């Protein structure tokens, strides 16, 4: 049982960290620019495709990852300059519509370029197998993801919490006008944040690609999760995004693993088998509704 628990904790951590990569960019764009970006998930998808395509071309996963992240960041730059700058000033409804349109365009373009079938992306040969830790086997590649996630989260923490750029970003999130009046080019800063967020999306997409599947529509389900994360954490807060991501990752993983067992112990087998997965899949939404009920601004509100 403890081993099951430990393994699930690792799984939850891995899932949570990847969610964090996605949520970090989203929460900043949302918090600072007050812009709902439904197309954030599309950047994740496009990023994964770029990584997969580049990895195939270069015949190296790591080269592909680097190239894919860079390519997606570039795409993010173009998007920010051409479209998002116009959207920041508009109301949420216009943002929802425009970014919904981007989802349609992204999905269909990917289908046009790479075809409707999922793309294959394999992890580096050396990481394909399991490694033994604490008496049980765990997939080596998942450990790598965890490590990458921790490193990026750590760097991001340093960047946001300790660097001057991070301070500007936080200041910009809290009060854009005042930050500008103090000589900070918030517009350029926003562009940088957006591009950075796009890069993180691609990183998550590329890292998860070998584990999941690189396919059209992969962005939408993950987008909703990322939104849940930042709502729980408080919009605009990186710390909130990290905590929210880990909560969602852990609750979802543990819920999926333990709820059926728990229900089997208390309910008839048939009911447990149906109810278990149902409850497990709505658990995080229940969590979010609950948190919003008691803390309508999320756990770490960025604006006082």
């Amino acid at each position, binding site marked *: 049982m403890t081993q099951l628990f430990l393994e699930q904790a690792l*799984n939850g951590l891995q*899932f949570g960290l990847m969610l964090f990569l996605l949520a970090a960019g989203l929460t900043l764009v949302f918090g600072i620019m007050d812009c709902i970006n439904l197309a954030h998930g599309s950047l994740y998808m496009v990023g994964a495709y770029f990584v997969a395509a580049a990895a195939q071309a270069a015949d190296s996963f790591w080269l592909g990852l680097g190239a894919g992240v860079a390519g997606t960041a570039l795409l993010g730059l173009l998007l920010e300059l051409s479209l998002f700058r116009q959207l920041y000033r508009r109301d949420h409804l216009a943002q929802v519509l425009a970014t919904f349109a981007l989802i349609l365009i992204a999905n269909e373009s990917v289908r046009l370029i790479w075809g*409707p*079938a999922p793309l294959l992306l394999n992890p580096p040969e050396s990481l394909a197998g*399991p490694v033994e830790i604490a008496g049980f086997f765990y997939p080596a590649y998942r450990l790598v993801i965890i490590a990458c996630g921790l490193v990026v989260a750590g760097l991001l923490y340093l960047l946001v919490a300790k660097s001057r750029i991070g301070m500007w970003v936080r200041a910009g999130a809290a009060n854009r006008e005042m930050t500008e009046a103090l000589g900070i080019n918030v517009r350029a800063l926003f562009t940088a944040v957006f591009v950075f967020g796009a890069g993180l999306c691609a990183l998550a997409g590329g890292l998860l690609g070998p584990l999941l599947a690189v*396919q059209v529509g992969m962005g939408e389900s993950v987008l909703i999760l990322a939104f849940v994360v930042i709502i729980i954490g408080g919009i605009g807060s990186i710390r909130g995004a990290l905590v929210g991501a880990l909560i969602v990752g852990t609750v979802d993983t543990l819920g999926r693993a333990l709820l*059926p067992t728990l229900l089997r112990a208390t309910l008839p087998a048939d009911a447990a*088998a149906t109810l278990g997965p149902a409850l497990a899949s709505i658990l995080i939404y229940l969590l979010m509704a609950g948190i919003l009920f008691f803390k309508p601004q999320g756990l770490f509100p960025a604006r006082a």
Partner: protein
Amino acid sequence: MLPRLTALAAALMLAGSVHAADKVKVGFVSTLSGPGAGLGVDIRDGFNLAVKQLNGKLGGLPAEVLIADDQQNPDVAKQATDKLLKKDKVDFMSGIVFSNIMLAVGPAVFQNQTFYISANAGPSQYAGEQCNPFFFNVAWQNDNLHEAVGKYVQDKGFKNVVIVTPNYPGGKDAVSGFKRYYKGKTEEIYTKLGQLDYAAELAQIRAAKPDALFFFLPGGMGINFVKQFVAAGLSRDTQLFAPGFSADEDVIKAVGAPMMGMFNSSHWAHDMDNAENKRFVAEFEKEYGRLPSLYASQGYDAALMMDAAVRDVKGNLADKKALQKALEAKRFKSVRGDFKFNANHYPVQNYYLRVIGKDGQGRVTNKTMGTIFTNHADAYAAQCKMK
């Protein structure tokens, strides 16, 4: 309004019984995008290959195959089907991969008195109480491959089996099919349909320590599951079993070596020794540059079946009764060898055990090991009262 329509239909029928049609229209709705796309694409390619070999004709009439993507979404499939039936007025329908989509589309097709030749989806409903003269399945009934695995796992004396399947009706059918022949201890794990990350489930499996694992995860789900299963080191202690379509060439191509040693059941294999099959496999490889999957073989058979029936009725497609008789007669040579249709229009056929290993050229592929069932019928035929 209604009487007028019926009158119109009657008039059309009358007209049809006098003149042979000048071409055959086939509505082909299948899953061509998304995680299940590989399946639909194979069926389509198999079907098209047959039509091509027949010089673009079915039963001697020029064939027009109208293809639509259902996106694995019943609503989309329903709309596409309505359009094919009412606007394009097709003579046959085929192509659907997933049973839930078949069930959504079926009533409209049957109501329109159009013959549906299923190249994959074989829901139990249409095998049993809701069997329909206009529905033929040239592949199987959904439970069959699961039954075959269950039989083999039972015979080999495995005692503790974990079953992994999505939490949807097809998954539940798989469990009951498997358990119809396997009587030992089971633990069932249900996943979301379309789920791609199995970390939580694999941890549960590790904790359960089964000696065998049977999974039914269609399309991309199975690919991910096998990869992650092996990456988690679980293949060392647990023998993997799956129905043939979770271990077919499309999956092997995606997963590769980790699949070696996996047992599965099938009614067809690319190494089956008959002339039709050899030709089919060779031509398919030549045309598409890959080994055909069993879906491709089913699509191929579906086209052959239409061809034979149209030829049988001499192109008089309006005589539904005659056409039904012709279809039931099954006057074509299937690539899987001989089989016949049961009263419910589902096949009675053999099921084989296959194992994945390397072939003579070093490719990872399926090898047929033996026969599990001979002339096996489905469990629902008795409930079918075909009108």
